[in-house]
């Protein structure tokens, strides 16, 4: 997918300025409380969403089914803080829907625990 872009730099080059430029230098996105396993799903295809920066279009394309914020970041290969800002933008534009995990203080629901246990046994 991004193979042809990889030739001229490597990890040693450090983060690309581009990804921060896309977010206008913003790296804080605390208002929505997106975390690693917040699930996001696109409400439209990239085509339906119209003119978007390529990075945003890639995120929309990745979110055609529910995925976690961490997964989006890994697959677009951008640092988490950058992806959180970009997702926040898309959520504000009603292009992406998000669902946070249960509040940390809440004890996990027994039904969920049982489902996870059964699911692991069936693997």
């Amino acid at each position, binding site marked *: 997918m991004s193979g042809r872009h990889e030739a001229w730099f490597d990890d040693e080059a450090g983060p690309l300025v581009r990804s921060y430029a896309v977010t206008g230098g913003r790296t804080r996105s605390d208002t929505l409380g997106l975390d*690693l396993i917040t699930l996001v799903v696109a409400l439209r295809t990239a085509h339906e969403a119209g003119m978007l920066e390529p990075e945003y279009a890639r995120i929309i394309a990745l979110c055609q089914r529910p995925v976690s914020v*961490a997964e989006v970041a890994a697959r677009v290969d951008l*640092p988490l*803080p950058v992806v959180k800002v970009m997702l926040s933008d898309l959520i504000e534009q009603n292009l992406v829907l998000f*669902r946070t*995990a249960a509040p940390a203080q809440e*004890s996990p629901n027994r039904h969920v625990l049982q*489902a*996870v246990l059964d699911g692991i046994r069936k*693997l």
Partner: protein
Amino acid sequence: MASGNSDPRRNLTATAVKVLIAGGFGVGKTTMVGSVSEVPPLRTEEVITTASEGVDDLSGIEQKTTTTVALDFGRITINPDLILYLFGTPGQDRFWFMWDELAEGALGAVVLADTRRLDSCFAAVDFFERRNLPFVVGVNCFDGAYRYGTEEVRQALDVGMDVPLLLCDARERESTKQVLTSLMEHVMARSDLAAAQGGY
């Protein structure tokens, strides 16, 4: 949230949960994640900006440092409405600040131990005990590594009898399944106990 959306693809009814795989650097955490994940382990980078410590601040200018931490994780789709993520914790001690965010909302944790350097997982055991997060200890049996009995390991790590401790091979899917099954049984037993005591 958006409403009036009839396309089932566009409804977000799914829930995500996470389990942590902790242990020292190079103990096999990512291997364990990969042995059961439905996708090859993914990697993402968290960037944290923290105020520098130990700097003589005579200038009055706040010193900041930026640290990048790589997180490896995998996914198991339990059912269309429930996704389990397995996160390997960063192995190096200097990334401790990431642990709080990782542990937030986690169902439980696996502490993966290497008998050749048990001390490398003391910190993880302490962390989960302090946070009261249920955990099990998986003793990863590397090829050629001397195999101690589970009770010897339990004593060395100083974990209570209530904490499940089992030998495993992080490369083997069945073995990792056993460890995760044991963890979830432990999590449920703890949750039942808390409910019985009126804790929740």
